[in-house]
């Protein structure tokens, strides 16, 4: 399902990253672990099609990302990938529900029952009509998970979802992510420096 080969990336000829090959089958989750500065975020952006590698190949769901135009990448992303960011981002002028509706609109979907069931599953249904800046940190994280899964992606990419959490919350969040991925039939790739997550994943690679 994901196969990378000899992926290289450099920022303005200053920072140079060469990533090890990844080979992930369908129905597998993956933990990518590494210290700061080894290019974790860069790799995640490459996998999400937000960046293009200088050389090598990234094959995701049998599509070669390096051969796609920026427009094709946008469209591939909205149909296949959900992203959970380290720090949650939202459209501040919209409510929780409207944020999810916007995500659906962008993917040409319109399904309020799915929004409701996701919010209920994440235990934040009663916050539907709240503006996102009225939410607590934990609620924000749940909404950002909801945003990542609302369009039924086949792959969820999570960037440092637990780095700022204590042990208790860390294990809660990772369990939640895994549950959501299973519930909605998606694979999960977590990129982190947080070694506490190792025990939650069968398959992991170190950068």
């Amino acid at each position, binding site marked *: 399902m994901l196969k990378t080969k000899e992926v290289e990336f450099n920022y303005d000829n200053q920072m140079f990253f060469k990533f090890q090959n990844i080979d992930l089958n369908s129905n597998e989750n993956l933990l990518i672990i590494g210290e700061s500065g080894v290019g974790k975020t860069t790799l995640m952006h490459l996998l999400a099609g*937000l960046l293009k590698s200088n050389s090598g190949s990234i094959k995701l769901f049998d599509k070669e990302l390096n051969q796609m135009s*920026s427009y094709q990448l*946008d469209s591939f992303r*909205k*149909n296949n990938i959900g992203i959970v960011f380290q720090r949650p*981002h939202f459209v501040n002028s919209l409510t929780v529900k409207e944020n999810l509706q916007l995500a659906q609109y962008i993917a040409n979907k319109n399904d309020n029952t799915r929004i409701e069931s996701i919010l209920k599953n994440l235990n934040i249904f009663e916050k539907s009509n709240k503006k996102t800046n009225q939410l607590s940190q934990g609620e924000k994280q749940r909404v950002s998970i909801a*945003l990542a899964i609302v*369009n039924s992606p086949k792959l969820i990419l999570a960037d440092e979802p637990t780095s700022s959490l204590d042990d208790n919350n860390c294990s809660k969040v990772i369990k939640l992510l895994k549950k959501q991925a299973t519930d909605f039939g998606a694979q999960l790739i977590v990129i982190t420096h947080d070694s506490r997550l190792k025990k939650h994943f069968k398959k992991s690679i170190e950068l």
Partner: protein
Amino acid sequence: MNIFKLSIKNIFNKPLSSSISLALLVLGVGIISLLLQLNTLIKDQMDNNLRGIDMVVGAKGSPLQLILSSVYHIDSPTGNISLAEAETISNNRMVGSSIKILYGDNYKGFRIVGAEKKFIELYKGVIKEGKDWDNPYEVLVGSKVYEKLKINLGDELISSHGLRETGQSHDEGTFKVVGLLKPSNSVIDQLIITSPQSVWDIHETHDHDEHENEHEHEHDNREITAIKFKSPMNIIQFPRQINENTNLQAAVPSYEISRLFKLFGFGIETLSYLAYLIIIVSGFSLFINLFNSMRERKYEMALIRTLGASRFQLSTMIIFESLVLTISGFILGLLFSRFGVMFVSSLMEESINYNLNSLKILNEEYWLLGLSVLIGVVSSLIPAIQVYKMNISKILADA
């Protein structure tokens, strides 16, 4: 949810900065549209009441005053000329037709004009109720006068001397209302019209009673004549002859009115430059707003992109935000100018019994719409291009 709705939500999320740009634009568009409306309405009124009058002859004085008083009935007359002199001029072979009018009295601020019957024909006056006057002291009343003063057929009007309400009243002279005129959208709507004989009669007794020294007044006490030419070729020559060879004054309405508008024009032009400046400033303020909010919202733009929106969709959102503001600014500006016209009209009606009523959209206002749209597009262009070129990976990595 869609991009357009999102734009509107974004505007309402920042009500303060949005409303400043909006207020500036409303002010700019409003002032220009108000000036355009007033200019057009006043010009229309002036042209409408001119009715092809090529020349006016009256007593010496300011030619503009002569025109304003005898054609538009808004200024005091320059004085009186004798009937005999007026007859000589109207019998001149260069004169096509002429109408003599006399002033003397008013009824509660509305002027009583003594005139020949063709005066009413000139303004296409039609009698709604009652009949034409047959005898002295019988009057026809214009539509605004009877509506405002609630005058009915058969009422008796006690006039006061002069053209203002405060003049002394003629106890001897009561006018009888014999006819009411239909609204004609011209000056006769605000006049009370009677035969010249009535005006002469009432002032004859009045003068004998109180001013014994005014022997020179025969029965041509007050008289101003409006004369229509046969041929426009004479417009230049004939008034000059009158002005040079007699102690009368001849004035050409079209010339005086264009002179008046030139005087106005300078002020109007200055004010509209100021208004255009305000519109440009509103464009700048809009640009600064969008630029700042774009920086504040860079994470949310990056988010929208990662959700799969294209660069083009995001840029469209920025341009929409700007256009929603400028187009609503245009609409509010037009409303503002309409209220302005109503206000000025009510002021004018109070002071000179003129009113201006038109709510139609002028061609120049369509240009203003174009200008507003242009301002909207131009001020959002740089922010939209920046959003288009945004490096989402970099923004997200910096977070």
